[in-house]
């Protein structure tokens, strides 16, 4: 397998070890945070959807990691909908061993992202990752923005969140010094 793929698989397994019963949305967004906030070179190509930054290759990698026995996944039902719970499995050491140097090099990054974002549910992770995506786009275009303008743009994309709630999440990211163009 290619280096980049083994690095991704090892990362997903490490995330599942550090934070058991992760949902698929959580894996997707934590990978986004790792790549965007910690510059972990996972090689994903995240683009924006109404559910936040997304790359279908994360789902493919989850499937491959599961086949290799590095993680196990089960579907969980709740009132009105469903989700997934992903945990490390019996071959987790084998999968991490495929990219042991990578895991060693980025273990602290993975720990940091899990600590900062592991406590959030999938709805908040979608919102937080969308805020960061919009912030990075503004930064790349060299445009400065106020909290209010950022909240307004995010609300256009995710109109079901009210503005004060979005602003509180922006303030959290500011406190954590994770927004760039402020």
């Amino acid at each position, binding site marked *: *397998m*290619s280096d*980049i*793929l083994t690095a991704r698989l090892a990362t997903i397994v490490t995330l599942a070890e550090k934070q058991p019963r992760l*949902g698929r*949305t959580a894996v997707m967004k934590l990978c986004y945070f790792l790549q965007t906030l910690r510059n972990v*070179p*996972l*090689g994903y*190509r995240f*683009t*924006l*959807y*109404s*559910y936040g930054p997304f790359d*279908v*290759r994360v*789902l*493919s990698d989850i*499937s*491959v990691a*599961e*086949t*290799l*026995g590095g993680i196990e996944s089960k*579907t969980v*039902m*709740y009132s*009105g*909908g*469903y*989700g997934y719970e992903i945990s490390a499995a019996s*071959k987790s050491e*084998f*999968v991490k061993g495929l990219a042991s140097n990578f895991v060693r090099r980025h273990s602290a990054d993975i720990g940091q992202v899990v600590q900062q974002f592991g406590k959030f*549910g*999938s*709805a908040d992770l*979608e*919102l937080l990752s*969308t805020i960061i*995506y*919009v912030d990075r*786009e503004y930064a790349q275009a060299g445009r400065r923005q106020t909290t209010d303008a950022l909240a307004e*743009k995010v609300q*256009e*994309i*995710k*109109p*079901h*969140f009210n503005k004060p709630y979005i602003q509180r999440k922006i303030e959290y990211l500011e406190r954590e010094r994770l927004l760039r163009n402020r």
Partner: protein
Amino acid sequence: MAKDPHRKYEIRCPVHGFIQIDDWEREIIEQPAFQRLRRIRQLAWTDLVYPGAMHTRFEHSLGVMHTATWLYDSIVSKSGDLLKQELAYDHQGLERDRRLVRLAALLHDVGHAPFSHASEELLPRKRSTERFAHEDYSAAVIRNELRGAIEGHVLSANAGFKAEDVAVLIEGGAAAGRAVFWRDLITGQMDADRMDYLIRDSHHIGVHYGRFDLRRLIFSVVAIPADKENPHPRLGIEEGGWHAAEALVLARYLMFTQVYFHKTRVAYDIHLRGVMKRILPGGAFTKPEGAGLKEFLRWDDWRVMGLIRMGKGGEHGRRILERNYYRRIYHTPEVCSHKDMLELKKVKTRLGRLVVAEEKATKSWYKTGNTDIPVFSRVRKPQVQPLSRYSKVIAGMKENSQVLLYVDPASREEAERKLNKKGNQLR
């Protein structure tokens, strides 16, 4: 007599019958940047395996526009109230985004390199771990080469969007705002792109693997209301259409194994990359910026084939001309376990320098796994369940992680001896 800007035109399509376009869309289609798609084959050298695979990105792009519009209209018809309540759409907003989706669907592939996905590895690097993708080129073509046609037509004044909005919807930029909801129709799990190419490729190739009930599927796609874990409406399938969705997923799987990842087709992709590395200045395409974009658009299949015919393609060009392609010597199972990976490692060690290429299904642009389409039921109370809960076939599907090893045909016997001597079962 003045030209009627509201006139409609029909283009005959082997899959959809007639595809209707208006004068504005016709103007865009007539631009050289779009006409270039007539010279880019949908499936690269697949015709060397399936002789019928001669269709182009041009007809596929028209088909995606047609299918996306069909999907859009069906969703609005079934889920209009939800879109109005949760995304604050009104009639004008829905009309605006319908046109936007049509143009994004029409132009989503306008930035393809020659031979479609086969030469994408030759796109330059954007960052250290990421290459530009054809979508980056499509967006750049829309912003530059097609801006005049998109913004200059008299009908564009009614549309309420600019070329930039079309580019942003394809790229997945934040500026798309509310319209980002419709990106799933352009590039998603049940997008118009996939629905069109599976059926179109099957039609031209003469296989039935990619066929599914398109009409049933389209009329089953709905916007699913938000719930506590999914705070935003999303696209899914009405319960009555789950078999059609199951057939779509199976069609992807079958087309992948029988066509897109066919061992000989993959061998020709290797040779094409070898040719392109040799004939492109610096061994890569130019970036989608300024003069680089114009230079990129000068490349199409015809130019590459002409250079190969003139003998400028080097060893790989000769192999294409003489049909002397690399031969697959070994393959793992479609879904690789850790034992299969260990065996692969042993085989590679045994074959050593005889292995000239290693191709991985995971690197393919086409994906096969079970990404679990949400199914919406209204029986008793609204409930969303994954397709894998309905279909045991889908529940058992995994991402294809097959690895293929290739050797030069001249050393095939030697490679076979090495594998057989060690008791390896040749796959």
